[in-house]
């Protein structure tokens, strides 16, 4: 018996414009839960996709039970006993839970699918997971947490010996997460090897026996859980001390520009009240699925609220669309810049000028020379890594794409700018640049609302912090009051019990 069930040696993977993995190693022992840690963009997801055969490596070798293997497709990997539970749930919304669980390995007799037997087995799997839905329910009707459970059931149903969990707890409540811990323990006791990816240190300490850290597409180290400390781990993940990252300028907050009162959207968020003043950087944090992005999208006019008031510059406003919002002085940088933020097929220059195009136009006709001059100026101010203004946005790395997105707001006349996960998937250098620009914008008198899951930047950059949990604001902390533990406690607080008193504070 070889020491490792799965071993990766010197794996590299290139994507257009990005080196996603640079000669990384990984070793998985039989019957262990192995935590894979790293910041967004460190290469974890790419590694998973290589292990599951979705991508093929450009260099390096994979050994399964000591034998060299090549997974040409997810089918190969599945046949070898590898199953993955993905971060972005990859399900079929129009099909039943049963079918989602058994897709690709249906129970058949004479070529015909045995629905009865499949429903029964699926129902049994769901029950072992203590989940509160039925096998015949449509996948599309389930909540994100329930869909996550289906993904787990799917992995269980294949009797896989190597199970990869890519941030499975991100969308789960405390109880659901505890249940998941038990299930994961049981899987290990039954002999499966588990690769566990999570941003929650809590998950890692609770489950893992060993930890591997990646940073910037490279392998850093692997240690037994006993040898891991918070500080050491953070240092390995981030690569330097944290506090030097945040160039937070001291700014005297001006008058209040945004006041939101008891904004509600049925089933999504409830009684959200918050304010922002000129020159302030306001943080909004909470676990994934707490409804932060949804609140911001409502403020930005994408989804109308059921009730509540929004005041901008002291005036009550109704915002029906993003173009409305921007006319009234409220802008938003989306979390999903690849799909919603930038037009990847376009060059950098046009991406920068798109929101403010009318400024370069006379009678609707665009003056392309002045457009280019300004775009160049802005692109240089945010230090975009590009040779010409005509490079396509798709050719830039995540960090530089975000710089381009940020560059748009530099000359705008916005009063409030919402930045949703502004440093997600951004490399360290670009992060510093983005923080610097945030400070700059605040100095100009803009109110900035930063939505973020990353504790360090929330603590490092924000004047005030709102914490959300399950669709409600569960707390508000000043910069002085805030620390990691308090935020985490509020973010995990059961909203139903405490909401009333917290919101009124």
């Amino acid at each position, binding site marked *: 018996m070889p020491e490792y069930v799965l071993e990766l040696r010197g794996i590299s993977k290139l994507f257009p414009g990005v080196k996603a993995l640079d000669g990384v190693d990984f070793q998985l022992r039989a019957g262990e839960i192995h935590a894979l840690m790293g910041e967004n963009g460190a290469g974890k997801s790419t590694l998973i996709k290589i292990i599951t055969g979705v991508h093929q490596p450009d260099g390096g070798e994979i050994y399964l039970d000591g034998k060299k293997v090549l997974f040409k497709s997810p089918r190969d990997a599945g046949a070898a006993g590898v199953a993955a539970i993905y971060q972005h749930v990859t399900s079929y919304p*129009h*099909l039943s839970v049963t079918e989602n669980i058994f*897709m690709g390995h249906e129970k058949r007799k004479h070529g*015909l699918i045995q629905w009865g037997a499949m429903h029964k087995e699926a129902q049994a799997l769901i029950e072992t997971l203590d989940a509160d839905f039925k096998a015949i329910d449509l996948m599309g009707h389930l909540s994100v947490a329930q869909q996550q459970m289906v993904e787990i059931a799917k992995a269980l149903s294949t009797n896989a010996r190597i199970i990869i969990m890519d941030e499975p707890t991100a969308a789960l409540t405390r109880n659901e997460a505890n249940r998941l811990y038990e299930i994961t323990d049981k899987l290990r006791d039954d002999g499966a090897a588990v690769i566990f990816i999570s941003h929650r240190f809590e998950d890692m300490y609770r489950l893992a026996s060993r930890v591997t850290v990646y940073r910037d597409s490279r392998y850093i180290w692997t240690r037994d859980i006993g040898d891991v400390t918070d500080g050491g781990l953070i240092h390995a993940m981030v690569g330097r001390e944290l506090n030097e990252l945040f160039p937070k300028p001291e700014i005297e907050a001006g008058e209040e520009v945004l006041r939101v009162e008891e904004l509600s959207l049925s089933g999504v968020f*409830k009684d959200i009240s918050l304010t922002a003043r000129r020159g302030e950087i306001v943080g909004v944090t909470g676990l994934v699925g707490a409804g932060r992005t949804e609140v911001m999208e409502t403020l930005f006019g994408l989804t109308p609220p059921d009730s509540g008031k929004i005041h901008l510059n002291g005036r009550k406003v109704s915002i029906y669309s993003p173009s409305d919002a921007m006319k009234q002085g409220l802008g938003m940088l989306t979390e999903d810049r690849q799909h919603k933020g930038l037009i990847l097929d376009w060059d950098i220059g046009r991406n920068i000028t798109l929101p403010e195009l009318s400024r370069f136009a006379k009678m609707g006709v665009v003056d392309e020379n002045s457009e280019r001059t300004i775009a160049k100026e802005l692109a240089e101010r945010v230090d975009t890594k590009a040779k010409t203004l005509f490079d396509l946005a798709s050719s830039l790395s995540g960090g530089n794409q975000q710089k381009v997105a940020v560059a748009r707001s530099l000359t705008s006349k916005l009063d409030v700018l919402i930045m949703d996960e502004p440093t997600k998937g951004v490399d360290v250098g670009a992060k510093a640049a983005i923080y610097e620009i945030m400070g700059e914008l605040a100095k100009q008198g803009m109110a900035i609302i930063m939505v973020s899951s990353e504790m360090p930047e929330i603590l490092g950059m924000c004047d005030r912090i709102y914490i959300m949990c399950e669709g409600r604001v569960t707390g508000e902390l000043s910069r002085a009051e805030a620390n990691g533990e308090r935020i985490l406690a509020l973010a995990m607080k059961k909203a139903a019990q405490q909401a009333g008193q917290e919101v009124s504070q």
Partner: protein
Amino acid sequence: MSVGLRKILRSREFSLFLVLVVLCIVIQSRNPQFLTATVIDSILRNYSYTILMATGMLMVLLVGGIDISVGSTLALSGMTSALLMRHGVIESAFLAYMVSLGVGILCGLMVGLVITKGKVLPIIASLGFMYVFRGMTFFISGGQWVGMQHLLPEFRAFSQGAALGISNLLWITIVVYILVFIMLGWTRTGRQIYAVGSNPEAAMVSGIRSDNIKLFVYAFNGALAGISGAMFVGFYASAQNNSAMGLELDIIAACVIGGVSLKGGQGTIPGVLLGALMIAVINRSLSLTGIDPFWQQALKGAVILIAVTTNILVQRRATRLSLARREI
């Protein structure tokens, strides 16, 4: 069992069925001749190929594609076997049907190949082939039509005949419906068709060979258009160059009314059957009710628009309700 029953009563197909029943009752009240065996038989016979081809289109729409070349495929395959009959090459009705089927499969394969291998958008690829197949129909026929006297008597007899009181053409349609119903519901290929359309990315991750599935679906759709070609020629006892022009619109309309989503992944055989029957009834029944038959097209257009918009309203309501049920 009550869960199953409730599911059926709540389903889209059931409400569509109710609409169809109401429609029939209205027509019946204006013309007692409507719900008689003769009229029903005539409706089904006249639209057997539309109803048949709707299943093929369902599968194409399920994988997120579209094929507007089916009318031309029908004409080309029908013309091919008619010409071969005229020249005496084909000497049995069975062979005539098989030749049409073969031509249809070839046409479908070509469309599918251009879409999967050439990465051309389905609407464009099938638009091009709609021209090409229609043009080829004229080309091989020299612009002439093939008349009744040139067709095999056996072929005509089969196409216009009946067994057990049901027209042979309808038998073909019924058999195909049963086969496709089983395939879509109970075979791996059938479920993969839904999977590819429901979430292409997930299909890739679960190791489904999307291109092969798509190719199969287009070939199958072509095959049905091919059989319909022979049915069409036999039923009307002639092969015309401009046969079935615009038929693709009726077929897509039948699917859309039947609740098939153009985005893929959503749609059922019962729904499509009801949609196709609805189209057939609208097409045939206006003259029976004393309404100006020139209202027919406008009515059909209105029905499509109402069907798709109501569907959206119902979906929005369902989402709202399911969200409101969540506690926060």
